[in-house]
Protein backbone atom coordinates (compact mmCIF):
# COMPACT_ATOMS: atom_id res chain seq x y z
CA UNK A 1 0.00 0.00 0.00
CA UNK A 2 2.79 2.40 0.89
CA UNK A 3 4.59 1.42 -2.32
CA UNK A 4 1.57 2.43 -4.39
CA UNK A 5 1.45 5.78 -2.57
CA UNK A 6 5.17 6.33 -3.13
CA UNK A 7 4.94 5.49 -6.82
CA UNK A 8 1.96 7.81 -7.24
CA UNK A 9 3.83 10.60 -5.42
CA UNK A 10 6.89 10.14 -7.61
CA UNK A 11 4.74 10.19 -10.74
CA UNK A 12 3.08 13.41 -9.57
CA UNK A 13 6.53 14.83 -8.83
CA UNK A 14 7.77 14.10 -12.35
CA UNK A 15 4.58 15.48 -13.90
CA UNK A 16 4.89 18.67 -11.83
CA UNK A 17 8.57 19.11 -12.70
CA UNK A 18 7.96 18.67 -16.44
CA UNK A 19 4.94 20.97 -16.29
CA UNK A 20 6.92 23.70 -14.52
CA UNK A 21 9.48 23.61 -17.30
CA UNK A 22 6.90 23.58 -20.10
CA UNK A 23 4.19 25.97 -19.02
CA UNK A 24 4.25 29.49 -20.50
CA UNK A 25 2.39 31.40 -17.78
CA UNK A 26 4.79 32.26 -14.98
CA UNK A 27 2.14 32.43 -12.23
CA UNK A 28 0.93 28.94 -13.11
CA UNK A 29 4.54 27.79 -13.08
CA UNK A 30 4.95 29.16 -9.56
CA UNK A 31 1.80 27.36 -8.38
CA UNK A 32 3.01 24.12 -9.98
CA UNK A 33 6.38 24.63 -8.27
CA UNK A 34 4.54 25.01 -4.98
CA UNK A 35 2.73 21.72 -5.65
CA UNK A 36 6.12 20.19 -6.41
CA UNK A 37 7.38 21.34 -3.03
CA UNK A 38 4.35 19.91 -1.24
CA UNK A 39 4.76 16.50 -2.91
CA UNK A 40 8.46 16.64 -2.11
CA UNK A 41 7.63 17.28 1.55
CA UNK A 42 5.42 14.19 1.65
CA UNK A 43 8.18 12.18 0.02
CA UNK A 44 10.70 13.36 2.62
CA UNK A 45 8.25 12.25 5.29
CA UNK A 46 7.92 8.86 3.59
CA UNK A 47 11.72 8.57 3.49
CA UNK A 48 11.89 9.02 7.25
CA UNK A 49 13.16 12.63 7.46
CA UNK A 50 10.42 14.61 9.23
CA UNK A 51 12.55 17.67 9.95
CA UNK A 52 13.51 18.09 6.30
CA UNK A 53 9.83 17.60 5.48
CA UNK A 54 8.94 20.49 7.77
CA UNK A 55 11.56 22.76 6.20
CA UNK A 56 10.40 21.81 2.71
CA UNK A 57 6.74 22.37 3.56
CA UNK A 58 7.44 25.80 5.03
CA UNK A 59 10.15 27.03 2.67
CA UNK A 60 9.65 25.14 -0.59
CA UNK A 61 5.88 25.36 -0.60
CA UNK A 62 5.19 28.64 1.14
CA UNK A 63 8.01 31.13 1.22
CA UNK A 64 9.72 30.31 -2.08
CA UNK A 65 6.42 30.52 -3.95
CA UNK A 66 5.62 33.82 -2.22
CA UNK A 67 9.01 35.28 -3.13
CA UNK A 68 8.57 34.19 -6.74
CA UNK A 69 5.06 35.70 -6.84
CA UNK A 70 6.51 38.93 -5.42
CA UNK A 71 9.13 38.90 -8.16
CA UNK A 72 6.41 38.32 -10.78
CA UNK A 73 4.33 41.20 -9.42
CA UNK A 74 7.37 43.46 -9.90
CA UNK A 75 7.98 42.25 -13.47
CA UNK A 76 5.90 40.80 -16.28
CA UNK A 77 3.68 37.75 -15.94
CA UNK A 78 4.24 36.30 -19.39
CA UNK A 79 7.48 34.59 -20.26
Amino acid at each position, binding site marked *: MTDILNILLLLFLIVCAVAVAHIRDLLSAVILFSAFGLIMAIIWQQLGAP*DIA*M*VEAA*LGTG*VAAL*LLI*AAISKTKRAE
Partner: protein
Amino acid sequence: MMDDQIVRITSRLVAPFIQLYGIYIILHGHLSPGGGFSGGAIFGASLVLIALSFNLEAGIKQISHQTASVLESGGALGFALTGLVAIAFGGNYLANRSAGFPLGEAGQFFSSGAILVITVFVGIKVASTITTLFYNIIEKEEPLGNHKQTD
Protein backbone atom coordinates in the same frame (compact mmCIF):
# COMPACT_ATOMS: atom_id res chain seq x y z
CA MET B 1 -1.83 43.88 -0.46
CA MET B 2 -4.82 41.62 -0.57
CA ASP B 3 -8.14 43.23 0.28
CA ASP B 4 -10.18 40.17 1.18
CA GLN B 5 -12.00 39.89 4.47
CA ILE B 6 -12.02 36.08 4.59
CA VAL B 7 -8.27 35.89 4.07
CA ARG B 8 -7.62 38.59 6.66
CA ILE B 9 -9.77 37.04 9.40
CA THR B 10 -8.51 33.52 8.71
CA SER B 11 -4.87 34.55 8.78
CA ARG B 12 -5.44 36.62 11.92
CA LEU B 13 -6.87 33.52 13.60
CA VAL B 14 -4.24 31.13 12.31
CA ALA B 15 -1.06 33.22 12.64
CA PRO B 16 -0.65 32.97 16.46
CA PHE B 17 -0.96 29.20 16.30
CA ILE B 18 1.66 29.01 13.54
CA GLN B 19 3.97 31.18 15.63
CA LEU B 20 3.39 29.02 18.69
CA TYR B 21 4.13 25.92 16.63
CA GLY B 22 7.32 27.49 15.32
CA ILE B 23 8.50 28.41 18.82
CA TYR B 24 7.65 24.89 20.01
CA ILE B 25 9.68 23.36 17.17
CA ILE B 26 12.66 25.61 17.97
CA LEU B 27 12.61 24.99 21.72
CA HIS B 28 12.09 21.23 21.40
CA GLY B 29 14.79 20.83 18.78
CA HIS B 30 16.79 18.50 21.00
CA LEU B 31 13.79 16.35 21.94
CA SER B 32 11.69 15.91 18.81
CA PRO B 33 12.16 16.24 15.04
CA GLY B 34 12.84 19.79 14.02
CA GLY B 35 15.27 22.35 15.24
CA GLY B 36 16.44 25.81 14.40
CA PHE B 37 15.99 25.71 10.65
CA SER B 38 12.52 24.12 10.65
CA GLY B 39 11.11 26.22 13.47
CA GLY B 40 12.65 29.41 12.13
CA ALA B 41 11.21 28.75 8.70
CA ILE B 42 7.73 28.17 10.16
CA PHE B 43 7.92 31.29 12.33
CA GLY B 44 9.15 33.41 9.42
CA ALA B 45 6.37 32.03 7.23
CA SER B 46 3.79 33.19 9.77
CA LEU B 47 5.21 36.73 9.71
CA VAL B 48 5.17 36.63 5.91
CA LEU B 49 1.53 35.49 6.09
CA ILE B 50 0.61 38.52 8.19
CA ALA B 51 2.41 40.89 5.83
CA LEU B 52 0.73 39.25 2.84
CA SER B 53 -2.84 39.12 4.09
CA PHE B 54 -3.00 42.57 5.68
CA ASN B 55 -0.42 44.92 4.22
CA LEU B 56 3.23 45.65 4.58
CA GLU B 57 2.70 48.15 7.39
CA ALA B 58 1.02 45.52 9.57
CA GLY B 59 3.96 43.20 8.97
CA ILE B 60 6.49 45.92 9.71
CA LYS B 61 4.57 46.66 12.92
CA GLN B 62 5.23 43.05 13.97
CA ILE B 63 8.95 43.22 13.28
CA SER B 64 10.51 46.42 12.00
CA HIS B 65 13.52 46.69 9.72
CA GLN B 66 15.71 47.75 12.61
CA THR B 67 14.62 44.82 14.78
CA ALA B 68 14.99 42.41 11.89
CA SER B 69 18.56 43.48 11.18
CA VAL B 70 19.46 43.33 14.88
CA LEU B 71 18.00 39.82 15.17
CA GLU B 72 19.71 38.85 11.92
CA SER B 73 23.16 39.84 13.09
CA GLY B 74 22.46 38.80 16.65
CA GLY B 75 21.58 35.26 15.65
CA ALA B 76 24.81 34.66 13.77
CA LEU B 77 26.86 36.53 16.38
CA GLY B 78 25.30 34.62 19.27
CA PHE B 79 26.01 31.34 17.55
CA ALA B 80 29.67 32.28 17.13
CA LEU B 81 29.89 33.64 20.69
CA THR B 82 28.51 30.36 22.07
CA GLY B 83 31.54 28.71 20.52
CA LEU B 84 33.81 31.32 22.11
CA VAL B 85 32.16 30.70 25.50
CA ALA B 86 33.12 27.05 25.08
CA ILE B 87 36.73 28.15 24.56
CA ALA B 88 36.54 30.34 27.66
CA PHE B 89 35.32 27.35 29.66
CA GLY B 90 38.33 25.37 28.51
CA GLY B 91 37.10 23.28 25.60
CA ASN B 92 37.39 23.38 21.84
CA TYR B 93 35.44 25.82 19.67
CA LEU B 94 31.71 24.93 19.86
CA ALA B 95 32.40 22.09 22.28
CA ASN B 96 29.52 20.98 24.46
CA ARG B 97 30.27 18.41 27.16
CA SER B 98 34.05 18.81 27.18
CA ALA B 99 33.61 22.55 27.82
CA GLY B 100 31.47 21.90 30.87
CA PHE B 101 28.04 22.94 29.67
CA PRO B 102 25.45 21.35 31.99
CA LEU B 103 23.96 18.46 30.08
CA GLY B 104 21.13 17.61 32.44
CA GLU B 105 19.08 14.47 32.12
CA ALA B 106 18.47 13.29 28.57
CA GLY B 107 14.81 13.72 27.65
CA GLN B 108 14.11 16.67 29.94
CA PHE B 109 13.54 20.13 28.52
CA PHE B 110 16.56 21.79 30.15
CA SER B 111 19.13 19.38 28.88
CA SER B 112 21.85 19.10 26.25
CA GLY B 113 23.78 22.26 27.22
CA ALA B 114 24.86 24.34 24.26
CA ILE B 115 22.55 22.60 21.79
CA LEU B 116 19.47 24.43 23.11
CA VAL B 117 21.25 27.80 22.94
CA ILE B 118 22.56 27.21 19.42
CA THR B 119 19.15 26.01 18.23
CA VAL B 120 17.45 29.16 19.54
CA PHE B 121 20.04 31.39 17.84
CA VAL B 122 19.70 29.53 14.54
CA GLY B 123 15.91 29.79 14.76
CA ILE B 124 16.04 33.55 15.33
CA LYS B 125 18.44 33.93 12.44
CA VAL B 126 16.40 31.91 9.94
CA ALA B 127 13.10 33.58 10.90
CA SER B 128 14.53 37.08 10.52
CA THR B 129 16.25 36.10 7.27
CA ILE B 130 12.98 34.98 5.68
CA THR B 131 11.13 38.04 6.93
CA THR B 132 13.80 40.48 5.75
CA LEU B 133 13.98 38.84 2.36
CA PHE B 134 10.23 39.05 1.83
CA TYR B 135 9.90 42.65 3.04
CA ASN B 136 12.80 43.82 0.91
CA ILE B 137 11.42 42.24 -2.23
CA ILE B 138 7.78 43.24 -1.71
CA GLU B 139 8.13 46.84 -0.60
CA LYS B 140 7.81 49.67 -3.08
CA GLU B 141 10.11 52.62 -3.47
CA GLU B 142 7.90 55.43 -2.14
CA PRO B 143 6.55 54.04 1.16
CA LEU B 144 10.05 53.23 2.32
CA GLY B 145 11.19 56.76 1.53
CA ASN B 146 8.30 58.16 3.58
CA HIS B 147 9.02 55.65 6.29
CA LYS B 148 12.62 56.72 6.44
CA GLN B 149 11.69 60.40 6.57
CA THR B 150 9.24 59.85 9.41
CA ASP B 151 11.99 58.05 11.24
